[in-house]
C-alpha cells in the first residue's frame, strides 16, 4: 500500500543533508527570549537579530505592550468568532477606521493574518472570466490566492512593466476584468517594484491594481505608506494589502480601498469569513504601534540609514548583496555548499539571518536574507558586517583575493 507520507521523502532527505552539512536544522531555530528588538537569546547566547522583519522595532514598543495589557484586562483574551458573526468588537472597527484614515482611503478590512489578507482579497476579487496578472516572483500568499480563485492566472516577468504591458495587450478583446498584483518590496530579494511604470500600464490598459505593501509599509514614503506613496501614484492603486506583522510588530493583515464594494467583499471572502478574528490585545497593540509610527517619522530615517550602512558594508567586504538599498538585503550565494556553512557560522558567531533556499528563491540560488531595523545601532551593524566577513571567508563565499 502506498504510504501517505512518501511524498515527503524528498523533503526529508534534503533536510537530512542540510542538518548533516551544517549541524543545525535552519527551520527550527528557537528564539528563547527577546532581550530587546535587536537582540535575542538563541542556543543560550545573546544573538544579534538581523532576520525578523521587525523593521521599526515595534514588537517591543512600550506603548503597544501597555495597550495590549489594558485590552486584555478590559476585553479578555479572544473573540471566539469570525468577523461576520460574533467576532467584531468595537476595537476591530476602530482599527479599520484608523488604518483607512492613515491611508486616506474610504474603508479597510482587517484580516487575522497578512497571508489571509492576500489569500482573501485575491481569491474574492476575480471571478471565472477575469484575469489575474501576477509578478513572477510573487509571495506564496499571492500564488495561493490565485489557486483559490476561479480566474485565469497569467505571470509576467519580475518587476518588468514592459512585459506586463505585453501580456495585458495579448488579452485585448477578451471579456472579463483584469487585476494586476504586485508587491512593494519583494520579501526574498528586497527588490523594489517600479510602481510608477506599473501604474502607467494599469491606466493605459484599464486594469485594476492591487499592491501588497507588506514589506514597504512603515518603510517607504513620507508617511510610511509604501512604494505607491513614495512614487506619487497612490491614486492608481485600487487595493492596498498589508500586514501588521512587519513594521507594526504585531500580527494581522488588512486591505484598504476607495471602492465602496469592499463592503460586499466582506460577505464573499472565505479567508475573512471562516476564521476567528484577531484577539482584542492584538488590535489594541496594533493601534498603539500605529500611533508610535505616526509620531516617530525619525524611525524611518534611522531604518533607511541603517539599511544603507549594512548594504555598503556587504558590498565593501565583497559579498554579492542586493543592488537596491532597502531594509531587506539579500546576499546571494552560488551554492548550498557555501550557504549552509556560512549561515551556521553566522549563528555560531552571534548573528541570526534567514537562510532561504530554492525554490523559494529566484534563480535557483540560495540567499542569506537579512532584515534591518530602525533600532539597530551603528555598532551592531558594524559587528554584523565583521561577522559576515569572517563567516564569508571561512565558507568560501568571500574570496581572499577580493579583500
Amino acid at each position, binding site marked *: 500500500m502506498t504510504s501517505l507520507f512518501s511524498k515527503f521523502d524528498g523533503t526529508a532527505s534534503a533536510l537530512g543533508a542540510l542538518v548533516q552539512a551544517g549541524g543545525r536544522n535552519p527551520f527550527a531555530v528557537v528564539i528563547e527570549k527577546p532581550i530587546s528588538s535587536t537582540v535575542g537569546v538563541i542556543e543560550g547566547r545573546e544573538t544579534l537579530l538581523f532576520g525578523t522583519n521587525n523593521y521599526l522595532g515595534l514588537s517591543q514598543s512600550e506603548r503597544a505592550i501597555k495597550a495590549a495589557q489594558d485590552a486584555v484586562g478590559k476585553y479578555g483574551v479572544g473573540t471566539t468568532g469570525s468577523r461576520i458573526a460574533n467576532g467584531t468588537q468595537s476595537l476591530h472597527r476602530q482599527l479599520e477606521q484608523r488604518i483607512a484614515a492613515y491611508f486616506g482611503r474610504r474603508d479597510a478590512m482587517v484580516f487575522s493574518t497578512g497571508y489571509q489578507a492576500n489569500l482573501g482579497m485575491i481569491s474574492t476579487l476575480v471571478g471565472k472570466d477575469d*484575469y489575474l496578472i501576477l509578478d*513572477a516572483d510573487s509571495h506564496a500568499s499571492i500564488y495561493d490566492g*490565485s489557486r483559490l480563485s476561479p480566474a*485565469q*492566472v*497569467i*505571470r509576467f*516577468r519580475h518587476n518588468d512593466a514592459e512585459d506586463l504591458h505585453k*501580456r495585458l495587450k*495579448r*488579452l485585448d478583446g477578451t471579456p472579463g476584468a483584469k487585476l494586476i498584483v504586485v508587491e512593494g518590496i519583494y520579501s526574498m530579494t528586497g527588490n523594489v517594484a517600479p510602481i510608477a511604470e506599473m501604474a502607467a500600464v494599469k491606466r493605459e490598459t484599464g486594469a485594476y491594481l492591487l499592491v501588497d505593501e507588506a514589506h514597504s509599509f512603515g518603510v517607504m514614503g513620507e508617511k510610511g505608506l509604501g512604494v505607491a506613496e513614495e512614487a506619487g501614484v497612490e491614486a492608481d492603486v485600487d487595493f492596498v494589502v498589508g500586514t501588521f506583522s512587519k513594521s507594526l510588530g504585531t500580527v494581522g493583515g488588512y486591505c484598504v480601498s476607495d471602492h465602496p464594494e469592499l463592503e460586499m467583499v466582506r460577505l464573499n471572502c472565505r479567508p475573512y469569513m471562516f476564521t476567528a478574528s484577531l484577539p482584542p490585545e492584538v488590535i489594541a497593540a496594533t493601534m498603539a504601534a500605529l500611533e508610535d509610527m505616526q509620531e516617530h517619522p525619525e524611525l524611518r530615517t534611522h531604518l533607511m540609514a541603517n539599511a544603507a550602512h549594512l548594504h555598503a558594508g556587504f558590498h565593501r567586504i565583497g559579498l554579492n548583496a542586493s543592488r537596491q538599498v532597502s531594509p531587506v538585503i539579500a546576499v546571494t550565494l552560488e551554492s548550498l555548499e557555501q550557504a549552509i556553512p556560512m549561515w551556521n557560522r553566522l549563528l555560531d558567531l552571534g548573528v541570526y539571518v534567514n537562510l532561504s533556499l*530554492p*525554490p523559494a528563491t529566484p534563480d*535557483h540560488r540560495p540567499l542569506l536574507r537579512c532584515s534591518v531595523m530602525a533600532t539597530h545601532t551603528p555598532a551592531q551593524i558594524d559587528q554584523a558586517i565583521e561577522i559576515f566577513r569572517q563567516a564569508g571567508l571561512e565558507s568560501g563565499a568571500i574570496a581572499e583575493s577580493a579583500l
Partner: protein
Amino acid sequence: MSETVESVSALIIQKLLANPKVPRDIDGNCKIMEDLAFDSLAVMNFVMEVEDTLDVSVPLDKLADIRTINDLATCIVDLKNKG
C-alpha cells in the same frame, strides 16, 4: 501562421535542448517534471519563454493538467486557435 501540435512540440524540444542540463534524447512524450527534473518554478519559467516566442499566454490553471511536452503543445495550439 498556423502552428500544429507537431510544430509547437518541435519548437519546445528545440528550446529545451538549449539548456545543457536537459537529456539529449527527449521527445514529445517526455514528462516535463519527472523526465526533465523540472520543479514547478522551472516549468513556469520555461513556459514563459515559450509564450514569448509564440505570442500566447498560458494561464497557470491550465498548466496543472500538463504533464508531457505534447500536452503543452496541444494546450498552446488550442489557445492560439481560440484567440
